[in-house]
């Protein structure tokens, strides 16, 4: 496939790795923020091909993983109500809440449906005027334009039986939170290419300057990732701390302004709790007041139950990058993709699921 195969050429990957070995003289710790990039790095074993001393830490960029427990509980409570059709991206269905997951609601007769796009949820609402249709709007900046358009479309067509349960998070505040942590070891970041395709990368420029940390906007194929790591290491070796763009074919500095306009119209920036990390100020999106009628949290008075996480799960450390899945006693034994204890084992973008899928063996 064009734009995929040519960025998977093993010969060119070897050349990039040779170049990286020539450039790297000191040990450096680099974080890839996005779970999609974690997946490629682990599946292709890129982290194991890097020169000794170049360490990749896998960041919190898995929306399924960071959606807070209380929000999953709300989803489960709403989905269980009579007359509700609850729609969601597929990988949210098995995320454990305090008392169960959406699959369990479906098994008990609830109408829970997987949709590929939020517009599918709008279509379901149009076709079922006597039912309440709720869409679980999770994700980073990549899904926000789609989720915003679903709300705009519902408002435009006067749909009164459609609402969204919003749990949107933003990447730059997460990077800042990681850099502010006293035990932070990350010296450079690969920024998520598709987030930047939407938002551009001007937001990262003050972060790079203030924390003296290189940030390289990076694509998702093996050559993209190795080149992104090479560009980051080159900056670190030269003492530079700039925002550079490896993923030039898909990302412009100002991003997609039409998509940003839709996001700004429908959402406002708000504090968000990240599962495993805690509350980060101004780190997410909530519905703007003028679209409050589409807010499922207002339409359905449900409060999140807050029983704790499974005590065996170290998801918080995994999401902060301070420990690896293979450090966890439950990894691959009590916790597998079939019977996950925590969210990072569920989504294909979760670090634990990526490790398990690549056959990495636990050492705990």
């Amino acid at each position: 496939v064009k734009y995929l195969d040519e960025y998977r050429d093993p010969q060119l990957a070897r050349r990039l790795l040779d170049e990286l070995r020539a450039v790297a003289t000191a040990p450096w710790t680099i974080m890839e923020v996005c779970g999609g990039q974690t997946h490629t790095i682990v599946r292709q074993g890129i982290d194991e091909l890097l020169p000794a001393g170049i360490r990749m830490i896998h960041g919190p960029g898995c929306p399924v993983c960071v959606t807070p427990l209380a929000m999953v509980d709300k989803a489960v409570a709403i989905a269980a109500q009579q007359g509700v059709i609850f729609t969601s991206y597929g990988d949210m269905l098995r995320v454990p809440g305090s008392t169960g997951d959406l699959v369990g609601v479906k098994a008990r007769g609830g109408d829970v449906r997987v949709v590929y796009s939020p517009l599918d949820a709008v279509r379901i609402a149009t076709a079922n005027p006597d039912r309440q249709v709720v869409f679980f709007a999770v994700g980073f900046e990549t899904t926000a334009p789609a989720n915003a358009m679903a709300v705009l479309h519902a408002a435009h067509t006067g749909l009164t039986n459609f609402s969204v349960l919003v749990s949107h998070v933003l990447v730059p505040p997460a990077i800042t939170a990681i850099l502010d942590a006293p035990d932070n070891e990350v010296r450079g970041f690969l920024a998520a290419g598709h987030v930047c395709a939407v938002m551009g990368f001007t937001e990262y420029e003050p972060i790079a300057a203030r924390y003296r940390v290189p940030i390289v906007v990076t694509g998702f194929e093996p050559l993209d990732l190795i080149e992104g790591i090479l560009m980051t290491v080159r900056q670190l070796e030269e003492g530079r701390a700039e925002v550079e763009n490896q993923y030039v074919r898909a990302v412009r500095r100002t991003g997609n302004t039409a998509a940003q306009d839709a996001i700004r119209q429908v959402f406002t920036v708000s504090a968000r709790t990240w599962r495993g990390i805690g509350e980060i100020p101004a780190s997410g999106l909530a519905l703007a007041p003028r679209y409050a009628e589409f807010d499922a949290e207002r339409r359905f008075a449900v409060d999140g139950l807050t029983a704790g996480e499974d005590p065996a799960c170290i998801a918080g450390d995994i999401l902060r990058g301070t420990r690896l899945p293979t450090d966890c006693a439950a990894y691959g034994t009590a916790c597998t993709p079939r019977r996950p204890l925590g969210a990072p084992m569920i989504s294909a973008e979760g670090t634990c699921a990526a490790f398990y899928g690549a056959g990495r063996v636990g050492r705990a």
Partner: protein
Amino acid sequence: VCLGTPGRILTVEAPADRPDLRTGIVDFDGVRRPVCLIYTPEADVGDYVIVHVGFAISRVDEDEAARTLAVIRAIPDALAAELGPDGGRP
């Protein structure tokens, strides 16, 4: 959720009264899906776009795509140089 995929636009259409509400059929290596093109007004039939949850969020710039590969190909191949032009065969 977050995985974007490049695909090639096969057809584009829009309602007569809302020319901005463009949708298209996009080919992902043989799998064809309807995609909303409202955020990529510059993308047309034959272009590659990055698609997330049914929406094109970026048009792939073919010149830049070629340039990235050219830069990587320009890195000298240390192993090939060591082995010589005959690939090290005796």
